[in-house]
C-alpha cells in the first residue's frame, strides 16, 4: 500500500464553515494507505506549503492529495511544493472541496460526506499515479515559410531579422503572390508593386533567408522543433547560377502566344519567361508544356542565344531534405471559379471580367499598360458595372462566408476607373458595404461621393449581350425597382476561395481545414495564428480571406510565435500524453484516424532477423496533446494516457 499524505484546507471559512474538516481529516486518517492526514487554515500560504513539504519528507510520502479549492486554482502551486520536497509533482492530486462542494451545498452533513468521497476517490487515484517527467524536445532553429506572397515574405523577414534562419518556399517562379498582381492598394491608393518589390528583394538578399522559388513541399514529418521537410525544386531548365537575367532568351523565344497567368489571361507570354518584369529572382523558367523543343524535339533557340550557357534541357527536379523547427503556412488564396456564374456570362463574353483581371488592366505594368481597355475590342468602356458578392455570401454557390476584401477593392476599382476613364460611368451592385477598417469607410465614401460611382443595393440576376452592349439586369432594393444597365464592361468581385489543392496540402503538412478548405487555427479567438499541430502557424488568406494589413499583421504574429519558440533550446511539455502498448496493439489504425493531431504513426515491429512481424501504432510524444480520444477508441485497451490512465480512473471510480 502506498504512503499518502492528505492535506485538508479550511480556506479560512470558505471550506471550514461548510465542511466538518476534522471529521474529514479523521476519516482520511482511517483510510488504508494514508500515512498522514492533517487540516490547516490555508495550505496555499507559505507556512501551509511548508507543512506539506515537511510531511512529505517526514513520512516519506509516495503521494499527496490536497483537499482544497479547484485544481484550476492551485494544482500548480502544490505540485511545485511537492517537487521542492523531492516528490515527483505528478504524484499530487487536488480534491476540489471548495468550488464543487462547500460553496455550492447547504447541508453540512451531506457536504462533508461528499468531501470525504471526493477526497477518498482521489487518494485511490493518486496511489496509481506515476512519476512523470516533463517531455523535453530539442528545437531546430530554422523556420520554414511556405508561400512567397506578402504574408510569407513578411513572416520570413521578421523571423530573419530576429537572427533566425528561414527557408522561404514559393511554388511559382517568382516571389510576390497575388499582391504583385495588384495595381493600387486601398485605402491609400499607393502602387502595389512599389511597396511590394523592395520587400521581395530584401527577402531574396537577406543573409538569413534561403529562398527557394519554383519549389513545392513534398512531405512533412516530425513534430514541433523537429520537423523533417522534403522540398521538390522543380526544374527551371535555366541554370540559376549562370543566368544573368538579360532576357535575350525571352525576346527570342518563337513561341509567344501563351496565355499569361500573371495577367489573368489578358496578355501573352513566351515559353521561356519570367512572370513579370520585377520578378525575384529575375531568372526565367521554361514552360515545358508549351516549349517547342519539349513538344517537337526541335528549336533550342533560347539555348543558342544564351551567352552564358544557362539553358539546360536535361535539368531534373531536385529534392532537398531539411530539418525545420517551425513552419509558417502562408499559401494564400485563389479566386472562385467564375464559371459558376453562368448567368453573368463570364467566359462567354470577353468583357465580363474578374476583379483580379481589372487589377491587371489598371496596373501600369499590365497588358494595357494601365489603360482600362475592353479585352474584346480594346476600346475604353464608357459604362462599367461592378457586381459585388459574385459568389460570396451565397450558400447556393458553396460560399457562405464574406470574402472581406471585395467591398474595398470594388470601391478602389470604381475610383481607378473614374481616374482613368474620364466621363465614364461606374455602377456598383452590392449587398452590404462592409468597410470596417482604418480609413476604409472614408475610402468607399470617396468613391461614391467624389468619384461618383453609382452604388445600388441589390443583386444582378442576369447579364446578356444585346446590340454590342452588355445588358445587366438587377434590382435596386432600396428603390424596390428592377434596373437594367447597358454596360461596356462588367467586373465581378468574385469570392476568395482556398487554393484548389488546399485540402491535399493540409494533409501533407498535417493541419486541419474548415469546410471550405481554409486552414484551421487552434482557437479562433485565443490562438488565431497557431494550428492544432504544435509548431505550425498560419499567416494570410490561407486561413480566411484577408486584406494586406491583416495578412501582414498575422504574418508578424506568426514570426513572433516562431521567434518565441526559437528563444529556447529545449521545449518542455506536460507529460500528459498517450502511450501505446505495442504488444497488444492490433494495428487497426482507428486511433490514428481519430487523433486530432495526426500524432499517431505506423511503426514496424521487426523480428531479430529484420522481418516485419507486425505494424503497430506509435504515438509521437511531440505531437500528442493528451486528449485521450485514441484511448477511448482503442478496443483492445492498448493505449493509455499518462496522468489519466485507465487504472487511475478505474481506481477513482471504484473509490467513490
Amino acid at each position, binding site marked *: 500500500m502506498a504512503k499518502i499524505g492528505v492535506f485538508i484546507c479550511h480556506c479560512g471559512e470558505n471550506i471550514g464553515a461548510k465542511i466538518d474538516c476534522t471529521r474529514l481529516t479523521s476519516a482520511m486518517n482511517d483510510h488504508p494507505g494514508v500515512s498522514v492526514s492533517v487540516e490547516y487554515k490555508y495550505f496555499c500560504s507559505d507556512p501551509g506549503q511548508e507543512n506539506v513539504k515537511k510531511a512529505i519528507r517526514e513520512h516519506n510520502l509516495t503521494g499527496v492529495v490536497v483537499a482544497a479549492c479547484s485544481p484550476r486554482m492551485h494544482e500548480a502551486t502544490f505540485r511545485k511544493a511537492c517537487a521542492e520536497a523531492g516528490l515527483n509533482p505528478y504524484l499530487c492530486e487536488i480534491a476540489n472541496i471548495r468550488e464543487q462542494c462547500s460553496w455550492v451545498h447547504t447541508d453540512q452533513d451531506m457536504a462533508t460526506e461528499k468531501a470525504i468521497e471526493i477526497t477518498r476517490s482521489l487518494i485511490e487515484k493518486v496511489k496509481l499515479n506515476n512519476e512523470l517527467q516533463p517531455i523535453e524536445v530539442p528545437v531546430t532553429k530554422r523556420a520554414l515559410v511556405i508561400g512567397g506572397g506578402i504574408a510569407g515574405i513578411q513572416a520570413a523577414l521578421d523571423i530573419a531579422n530576429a537572427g533566425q534562419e528561414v527557408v522561404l518556399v514559393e511554388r511559382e517562379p517568382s516571389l510576390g503572390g497575388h499582391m504583385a498582381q495588384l495595381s493600387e492598394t486601398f485605402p491609400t491608393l499607393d502602387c502595389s508593386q512599389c511597396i511590394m518589390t523592395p520587400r521581395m528583394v530584401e527577402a531574396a538578399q537577406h543573409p538569413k533567408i534561403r529562398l527557394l522559388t519554383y519549389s513545392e513541399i513534398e512531405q512533412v514529418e516530425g513534430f514541433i522543433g523537429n520537423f523533417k521537410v522534403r522540398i521538390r525544386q522543380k526544374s527551371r531548365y535555366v541554370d540559376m547560377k549562370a543566368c544573368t537575367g538579360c532576357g535575350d532568351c525571352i525576346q527570342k523565344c518563337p513561341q509567344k502566344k501563351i496565355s499569361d497567368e500573371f495577367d489573368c489571361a489578358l496578355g501573352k507570354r513566351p515559353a521561356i519567361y519570367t512572370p513579370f518584369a520585377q520578378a525575384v529572382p529575375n531568372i526565367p523558367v521554361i514552360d515545358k508544356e508549351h516549349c517547342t523543343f519539349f513538344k517537337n524535339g526541335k528549336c533550342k533557340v533560347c539555348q543558342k542565344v544564351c551567352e552564358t550557357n544557362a539553358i539546360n534541357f536535361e535539368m531534373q527536379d531536385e529534392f532537398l531534405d531539411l530539418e525545420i523547427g517551425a513552419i509558417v503556412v502562408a499559401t494564400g488564396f485563389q479566386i472562385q471559379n467564375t464559371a459558376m456564374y453562368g448567368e453573368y456570362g463570364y467566359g462567354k463574353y470577353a468583357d465580363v471580367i474578374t476583379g483580379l483581371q481589372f487589377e491587371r488592366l489598371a496596373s501600369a505594368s499590365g497588358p494595357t499598360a494601365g489603360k482600362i481597355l475592353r479585352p474584346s475590342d480594346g476600346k475604353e468602356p464608357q459604362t462599367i458595372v461592378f457586381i459585388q458578392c459574385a459568389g460570396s455570401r451565397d450558400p447556393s454557390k458553396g460560399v457562405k462566408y464574406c470574402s472581406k476584401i471585395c467591398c474595398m477593392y470594388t470601391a478602389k476599382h470604381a475610383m481607378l476607373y473614374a481616374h482613368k476613364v474620364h466621363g465614364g460611368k461606374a455602377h456598383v451592385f452590392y449587398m452590404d458595404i462592409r468597410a470596417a477598417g482604418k480609413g476604409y469607410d472614408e475610402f468607399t465614401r470617396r468613391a461614391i461621393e467624389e468619384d461618383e460611382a453609382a452604388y445600388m443595393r441589390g443583386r444582378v440576376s442576369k447579364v446578356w449581350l444585346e446590340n454590342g452592349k452588355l445588358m445587366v439586369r438587377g434590382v435596386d432594393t432600396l428603390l424596390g425597382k428592377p434596373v437594367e444597365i447597358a454596360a461596356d464592361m462588367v467586373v465581378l468581385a468574385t469570392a476568395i476561395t482556398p487554393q484548389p489543392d488546399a485540402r491535399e496540402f493540409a494533409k501533407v503538412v498535417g493541419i486541419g481545414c474548415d469546410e471550405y478548405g481554409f486552414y484551421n487555427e487552434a482557437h479562433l479567438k485565443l490562438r488565431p495564428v497557431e494550428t492544432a499541430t504544435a509548431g505550425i502557424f498560419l499567416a494570410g488568406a490561407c486561413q480566411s480571406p484577408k486584406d494586406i494589413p491583416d495578412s501582414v499583421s498575422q504574418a508578424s504574429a506568426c514570426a513572433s510565435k516562431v521567434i518565441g519558440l526559437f528563444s529556447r533550446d529545449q521545449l518542455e511539455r506536460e507529460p500528459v500524453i498517450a502511450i501505446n502498448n505495442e*504488444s497488444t496493439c*492490433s494495428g*487497426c489504425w*482507428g486511433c490514428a*484516424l481519430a487523433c486530432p493531431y495526426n500524432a499517431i504513426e505506423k511503426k514496424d515491429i521487426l523480428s531479430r532477423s529484420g522481418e516485419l512481424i507486425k505494424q503497430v501504432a506509435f504515438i509521437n510524444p511531440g505531437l500528442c496533446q493528451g486528449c485521450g480520444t485514441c484511448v477511448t477508441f482503442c478496443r*483492445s485497451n492498448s493505449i493509455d494516457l499518462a496522468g489519466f490512465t*485507465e487504472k487511475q480512473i478505474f481506481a477513482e471510480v471504484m473509490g467513490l
Partner: protein
Amino acid sequence: MSIQEQYRKKAAELLSSGEVKLVIGYGSGSTPDRRRALFARTADDAALFHVDAACDANLSGYLVNEGLLSDKKKIGIFLKPEGIRSVNILAAESQLDPDQIVILGFTEENGTVSGLQGTQASDFTSLMTALKENRTTSEKEQALVDKIEAMTPQERFAFWQAEFEKCIKCYACRQVCPMCYCKRCIVDNNQPQWVHTSSHTLGNFEWNLVRAFHLSGRCVECGGCDRACPVNIPLRLINRRMANEVLDAFDHFSGMNQNQEPVLASFKKDDPETFIL
C-alpha cells in the same frame, strides 16, 4: 453444371494453377445437415467442397489467423455477402491485404444458392450498395427487435437479464466473430479489469454490452455469434439494433468497401445529437 460443381472446379483451378496456396470453404460436417470449414491445399481437396444452403458460417475470420497471410501468397475463400463485407472491414482496419483474397462468392435465398460475379472484394461494390439500400435480413428478426423496443425499460432489462444470466463466458461469440481479431480482448486486460470475468449476471451483462459496443458499426450481421452461442442468447438482436443505429444516425453500413472509415473513429460536425442537453 451446379453451382457446387462450378465452384469445386474453380477452386481446383485456383489451387492447381498455384494462384492461391489455400482455399477455405465448406466440407461435410459430422451430421448430414452440418457443414464445417475445410482447408483445401490441393486440387483433389477441392472436390470435397460443398456449396449449399447449409453453408452458413462466415469463414472470413480464418483469414486473420496468425501468420496465414504473412507470406503474401493468395488465399481463396468461399464467402457470402456478409463475408465479403467482413473482408472489406478487415481490409479497412489493416488486418489483411484484400489483394491476397480471392473470393468465391455465393448467396443463398430460400434454400437456393447462386454464385456471385467477381473475385476481389472490390468487385462487389454494387452488391454492397444494393444491400445497404435494401437491408433484407429477416423480417422476423426486425420484428423481434421491434418487440423488444416496444417494451418498457424495466421489461427490456428483465428480458436481457434472463438471457445474460445464461451466459457462461465461453467467449464463443467473440472467437467466432471475424471482427474480434484483437490481440488482446479488453476483457482479458486485468489492469484494470474493466469487465468482470466472472459469469454472474452482472459480469455477463457487462461483457455483452462491451462486445456489442465494440462491434457497433463493424458487425455485418452474419449471425455467427448467435449460432455459436451454446446457451442460445439471441445476440443477433443486439447486433441488429446497433446496425440500425449507425445506419440511421450516421448513414453507416458496415463493410461497404475497403476504404470505409470506422464509424467510431470518424465524425461529422453535423452528426445528430438530439439527446444532448
